[in-house]
């Protein structure tokens, strides 16, 4: 019954709209699954929180408060008290406000690390896929070298070489994604190169440039978008790992979940919640991006198309 009615709804939908691209179609299929909706809700809430957190934070996250500092000793960090929902952090700042604002910084790191990774990866993969031959061989051996290093080790090496700043973390994490995106796009483009519609376009005398940008690239980009969503999750975790290892941002005041987690490690016995809350936040957000990415991947997979 429900299958019948969705089919019918589909038909009506496709009749009502003039043109539905395959991408739109896939998107519609994605959001039929509850898992995808859960992922979307988590990601959506996270993004909204990231945008509005500076305005809804009850206290200034970048200022110590005397009432918290007065009770701060090396063996005691104040817990919840009136006006301070989660109490103080190790520096007498309002922990709850910092946790809220942390969403923004974390999203910033995740998004930029992924964007840079996708951009560089797509340039490498696109060139390799479009030209083939020795260009392909050269670029792919390069990505093989990057892939042969364990991803976190690669990020640690890059972070250790550069001065400790937020952009160091972003670049280090971005480099993890580069070879993955490069391989993915190159593979998809090579599959496109021998496809019938590219042959048909060639038979019509369409220019090489047009064939690459209009016929090969748009047909190859689906898996890259999905991988980018999944990478956002790992990027946030990797950034946290770098911070935890002390290779992250040297500005200890910045409210970023990974950094907050890293700075809380010596204080686990004094106030475990300083580590617990940022960690939980990272886990939930990473889960949200993973759920979303996985269900997108499933709906783009022709095997699951109904």
């Amino acid at each position, binding site marked *: 019954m429900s299958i019948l009615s969705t089919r019918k709804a589909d038909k009506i939908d496709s009749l009502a709209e003039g043109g539905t691209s395959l*991408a739109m179609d896939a998107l519609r299929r994605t959001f039929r699954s509850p898992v995808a909706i859960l992922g979307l809700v988590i990601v959506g809430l996270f993004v909204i929180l990231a945008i509005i957190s500076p305005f809804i934070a009850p206290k200034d996250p970048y200022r110590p408060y005397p009432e918290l500092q007065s009770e701060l000793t090396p063996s005691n960090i104040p817990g919840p008290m009136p006006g301070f929902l989660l109490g103080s952090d190790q520096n007498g700042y309002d922990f709850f406000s910092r946790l809220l604002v942390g969403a923004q910084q974390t999203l910033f790191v995740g998004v930029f690390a992924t964007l840079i990774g996708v951009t560089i990866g797509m340039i490498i993969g696109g060139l390799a896929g479009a030209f083939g031959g020795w260009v392909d061989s050269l670029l792919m051996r390069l990505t093989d070298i990057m892939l042969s290093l364990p991803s976190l080790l690669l990020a640690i090496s890059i972070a250790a070489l550069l001065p400790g700043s937020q952009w160091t973390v972003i670049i280090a994490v971005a480099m993890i994604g580069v070879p993955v995106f490069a391989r993915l796009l190159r593979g998809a483009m090579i599959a496109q190169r021998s496809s019938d519609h590219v042959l048909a376009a*060639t038979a019509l*005398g369409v220019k090489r440039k047009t064939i690459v940008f209009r016929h090969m690239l748009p047909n190859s980009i689906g898996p890259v978008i999905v991988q980018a969503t999944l990478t956002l999750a790992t990027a946030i975790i990797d950034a946290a790992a770098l911070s935890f290892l002390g290779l992250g941002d040297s500005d200890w005041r910045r409210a970023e979940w990974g950094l907050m987690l890293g700075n809380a490690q010596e204080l686990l016995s004094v106030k475990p919640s300083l580590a617990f809350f940022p960690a939980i936040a990272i886990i939930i957000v990473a889960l949200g991006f993973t759920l979303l990415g996985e269900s997108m991947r499933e709906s783009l997979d022709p095997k699951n198309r109904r």
Partner: protein
Amino acid sequence: MALLDVRDLSVVFKRKGTRPFTAVDGVSFSVEPGQTVGLVGESGSGKSVTSLAIMGLLPKRGAEISGSVTFEDTELLTLSDKQLRDRRGRDLGMVFQDPLSSLNPVITIGLQITEVLERHRGMSRKEARVEAAELLDRVGLPDPQRRIDEYPHQLSGGMRQRVLIAIALACRPKLLIADEPTTALDVTIQAQILSLLSELVSETDTALIMITHDLGVVAGLCDDVNVMYGGRIVEQAQRHDLFQRSRHPYTHGLLQSIPRLDAPRGEPLTPIRGSVSDNIEWEQGCAFAPRCPNATDVCWSEPPELKADDGRMLRCHNPVAIGDAVTEGAL
């Protein structure tokens, strides 16, 4: 002066570690302006490779092409890649077998037509769009104004093939190569597409090379027919001659294996024995000999030459006797 003249065209595929494979071997035929020529043969007979070689679409590495392909006094085989791109789509069009996979799934069909018009006829996007809608109308796509903004997956198989024909004919090429354009379609749609093709080519005076394994298609459409086996032409004749008096045992076998309306009920079809082997050898003798009912010793020892015989070209030591033929109307 022929529009297209193919002389001694050979294509050899070479790959490291394997024996070179001759897919097309000394094929010669010509196409007059406005003429429809059939290239018939079963899978692996080299008909598609012949068409790809004419269009210059074979991979540069691995495929060795020899002979000559002259199109309006221009030798196509020696043209540079860029010169060839300028001619393809403008002078030479091609329609492929599978209409779904031959269209780009992520852009609208309108864009796929206007792209060619802008490229070869220098139209602005607006002009091209108007022209594209007219083309879609001419190939019988219902409601072209709406369809122009649709994506390939929203069209049925027959409609997609109509779109491909519209794209191929967009720049009014002088020669259209149709590589099994109806194979992927329903039988009822096949007839529609074929009559559309023949209508359009006669309207615009376009020459057509029809590549097919279906002799029924040939009977309805082609002026001249080339029958290929194992990369070589085995019989070359005008349509009526071929159907009324097929001489090569292979052509004869093909005609025998088609169900006929005038045959007595319950009479079994006569298939050709055996199947095409992977590597067909013409060096030792006739490649068709293992499957041929007329084969004699000479067929195994001496490769037959393509010779003029009874108003046609024939490559056979023991042709079918005249009078033992199939009538065209029965197809």
